[in-house]
């Protein structure tokens, strides 16, 4: 029973990543035209890749069968039209789609077919985890002045910072061996709700709702503080027991009778 670990070499795979697909096999190939050959490399640096979201999850098709990988019969949707990008991404990001379509950005896109959409800010394949730094002068002043975007960023700033602080504490707790799945679910849902709200690009709405988010985050923070205090107590209690046993050992040693 001591000789157990060789088969793991064949069992182990990269954590979180998907296996090779028909899509990747073609797009990684030297035969593919350069513009499409870069796509897998971009995707592998994305947040989607880290969460095991692959080509067919967005574009459809059959990833296991090269002949059917781009078949409409297997749901292949290809590259969406410019004005249909929000609905393309909104297949999964439903709440964001709703807020976006009600926003000035969404109305501009539908009216003129040329407003900003998901890819404008997030990119298409090298999508990164959303954060406040997506709002920058270069990106946001393509159609209007940066002033409005700057006000948006300021409205988001405090909540964004709190989210970061809570996540950092959760990371510390996880490293300390505490099981935090409930708290991680809560922060994930709160963060998702917060990010969804941003897509309304309505500063007054964001300011109104921020208090609610901050309260939820403060509740998580309070629980985190409680856990940190408990961990500190456990450390001190165990250290006390260490000293007790060391002391007992020392006493026995000092009082011990020498051999005849």
């Amino acid at each position, binding site marked *: 029973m001591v000789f157990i*670990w060789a088969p793991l070499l064949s069992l182990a795979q*990269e954590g979180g990543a998907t296996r090779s697909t028909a899509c990747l096999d073609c797009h990684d190939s030297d035969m593919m035209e350069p513009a499409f050959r870069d796509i897998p490399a971009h995707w592998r640096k994305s947040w989607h890749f880290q969460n095991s979201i692959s080509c067919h999850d967005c574009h459809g098709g059959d990833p296991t069968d090269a002949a059917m990988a781009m078949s409409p019969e297997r749901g292949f949707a290809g590259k969406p039209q410019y004005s249909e990008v929000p609905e393309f991404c909104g297949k999964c990001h439903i709440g964001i789609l709703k807020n976006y379509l009600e926003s000035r950005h969404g109305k501009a896109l539908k009216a003129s077919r040329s407003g900003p959409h998901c890819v404008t800010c997030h990119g298409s394949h090298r999508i990164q985890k959303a954060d406040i730094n997506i709002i920058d002068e270069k990106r946001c002043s393509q159609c209007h002045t940066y002033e409005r975007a700057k006000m948006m960023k300021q409205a988001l700033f405090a909540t964004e910072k709190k989210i970061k602080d809570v996540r950092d504490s959760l990371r510390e707790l996880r490293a*300390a061996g505490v099981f935090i799945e409930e708290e991680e679910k809560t922060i994930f849902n709160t963060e998702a709700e917060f990010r969804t709200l941003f897509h309304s690009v309505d500063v007054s709405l964001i300011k109104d709702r921020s208090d609610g988010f901050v309260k939820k985050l403060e509740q998580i923070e309070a629980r985190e503080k409680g856990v940190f205090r408990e961990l500190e107590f456990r450390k001190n209690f165990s250290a006390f027991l260490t000293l007790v046993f060391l002391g007992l050992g020392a006493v026995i040693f000092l009082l011990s009778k020498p051999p005849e």
Partner: protein
Amino acid sequence: MTGKIKNWLEIRIGLDELVRTQLTEYRVPRGINIFYTLGIVALAAFISQVVTGFFLLIYYIPDTEHAFGSVQDIMSKVPFGWLFRLMHAVGSNLMVAVVIFHMLSVFFMGSYKKPREMTWISGAFMLLMTLAFCLSGYLLPWSQLSYWATTIVTSIPTAFPYAGEFVTRMMRGGETVSGITLNRFFALHVTLLPLLLILFIGIHLFLVRRIGISAPPFGKAAEKKKTWIAFAHEDHPDGHAFYPYFVQKEMYVLMAYFALMFFIISFLPTLFFPEDANTPADQFKTPAHIKPEWYFLAAYQMLKLIPNKLLGVSIQMALMVVFVLWPFFDTKEEENILQRPPLLAVFLLSLITWVGLTIWGKYS
């Protein structure tokens, strides 16, 4: 009051004679060193595991839906549940270390030789049972580490043709690790293995007491070694009293053991808990890096070095047989390993190889 109790016991079991023959007049050899206390430390470690295990048993639920959650409840909701759980987890690793050190010191002192072959064999089996405890207990939290480690362990018999698949299915109770496996390992961990180990402890202690404690093979005590041609209890009339001399030695080593345990719990609480140990089991997600516990790392690394799985497993089984039956491989009468350079070289080389493979396995 104490006098009355003593008198009551004296009439019924001859308490004075018992204390005199087993404690105050029972002699241990001169030159007995601190390594001789490792046996009692191993026994205390096992008792600690039983006591903490009992408290865990009150709250643990051996079911795939609830096992992980029940362990988290022990850690976060049961008053001082965290202490019992950590004592049990840290204690299991310390117990393996103590048993290994005990066997190394017995080997070094040549205390496995005639007439103590059975003592060695019973001890070797107890080491294997300790490792079986560790393996069966590993699955019970039903974490990612538990699930995948057990998947790998139970696939080992498949190295052998024909019977291998059958043995694997028997261990798992099916094709894959599941709730059936959990129940089997739970039954093994809390009933069969403890009973077996207690039986072997009884045999081992009986043999130690019946034959007598062996004297260190170095110095003056070694001059009085005799040839065994008939049974005789090995006395040490010029030795030290078991009580209080050896008992006090045992006591402060025991205190050091528990101090070490609580030191680890206090300052290194995640030493034996990688992240996968704190993530619920997910049969659809294989962790990127699975490594065994430190006491299996040498075997793990050795298997990585041997290209053929059947050959690797067979070599390790052969080594295990040699280990258990070692007294029959080394039948020379000389107990002092320092007088036997080839054996000393084999001992040191094996130890260095084991340590080297362990470190290599950790960082590979």
